[in-house]
């Protein structure tokens, strides 16, 4: 057999692990049922509006912070691991609950550092816009290696937070992660985490761009918007933490 004759004879692999569920559908979907950039951006707008609405509730009723955080975590896990198809119903609820959580947390920071909330909001959206510009212009090119390095960094940060969380039950915790620790080492770690969170946005942009190019099903617009939302919430929290450390000095 020569020159792809095997492919011509047997066709593409039917192994679902290789097709990953989308390849076969994407080509056959009518245009109106395919994912578009417009749709993903509009859905991100809806999620951001819901997040702001939730934040107003969380700001006024801080007691809802922890329940909202738990509900948001469960909804996030369900969306990622169980039902991407239902992202249209889980993602708005996720955005609302995360908004309530962010409202409560922001109020706590604002009580100690006046004006920190607007600084963190401005910086979060500033980073979002500037990285989008870098991505669209081709200044930052996400590759497989970029994704692997970022994945490893996120894994490391996750383990660090998990260890700190477990230690907190025994009255300890990693002091470098504490928002009240204003040492240069602590600020440096926070800055590194902000950089990792910001670069994750580039992967989200690329995910949406590739999804729209390959004509994935419409519900992936919600999933793309959801993944952008997850990263934005993380980035905002890390910027709040970084600013509080800097202002504690």
């Amino acid at each position: 057999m020569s020159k792809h004759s095997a492919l011509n004879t047997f066709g593409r692999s039917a192994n679902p692990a290789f097709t990953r569920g989308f390849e076969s559908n994407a080509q056959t979907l009518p245009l109106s049922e395919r994912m578009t950039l417009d749709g993903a951006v509009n859905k991100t707008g809806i999620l951001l509006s819901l997040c702001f609405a939730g934040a107003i509730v969380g700001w006024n009723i801080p007691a809802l912070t922890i329940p909202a955080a738990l509900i948001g975590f469960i909804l996030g896990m369900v969306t990622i691991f169980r039902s991407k198809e239902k992202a249209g119903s889980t993602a708005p609820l996720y955005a609302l609950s995360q908004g309530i959580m962010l409202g409560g947390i922001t109020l706590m920071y604002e009580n100690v550092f006046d004006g920190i909330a607007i600084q963190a909001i401005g910086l979060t959206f500033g980073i979002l816009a500037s990285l989008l510009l870098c991505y669209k212009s081709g200044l930052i090119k996400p590759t497989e290696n970029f994704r692997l390095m970022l994945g490893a960094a996120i894994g490391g940060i996750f383990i660090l937070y998990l260890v700190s969380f477990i230690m907190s039950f025994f009255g300890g915790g990693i002091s470098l992660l504490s928002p009240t620790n204003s040492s240069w080492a602590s600020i440096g770690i926070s800055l590194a985490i902000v950089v990792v969170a910001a670069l994750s946005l580039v992967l989200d942009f690329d995910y949406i761009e590739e999804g729209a190019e390959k004509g994935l099903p419409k519900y992936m617009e919600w999933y793309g918007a959801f993944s952008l939302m997850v990263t934005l919430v993380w980035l905002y929290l890390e910027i709040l933490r970084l600013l509080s450390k800097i202002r504690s000095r």
Partner: protein
Amino acid sequence: MNSIIFGGLAILSLFVFFNLGKVKASKKQTDRNNRINRFGELNPDNIIEGEADEVNENDKD
């Protein structure tokens, strides 16, 4: 002053996001060989053209 600067930055950034987000990325970004291939489509550049011969264990001896 703090609120005006950072509030303005947030509004301007959102404006940029909602406009630029709907624009397709540049050719420099989309037409390259090392893009992440998330959805399982083969990259034509990764297919090596050539003849394939069957190798038997007996032929090695």
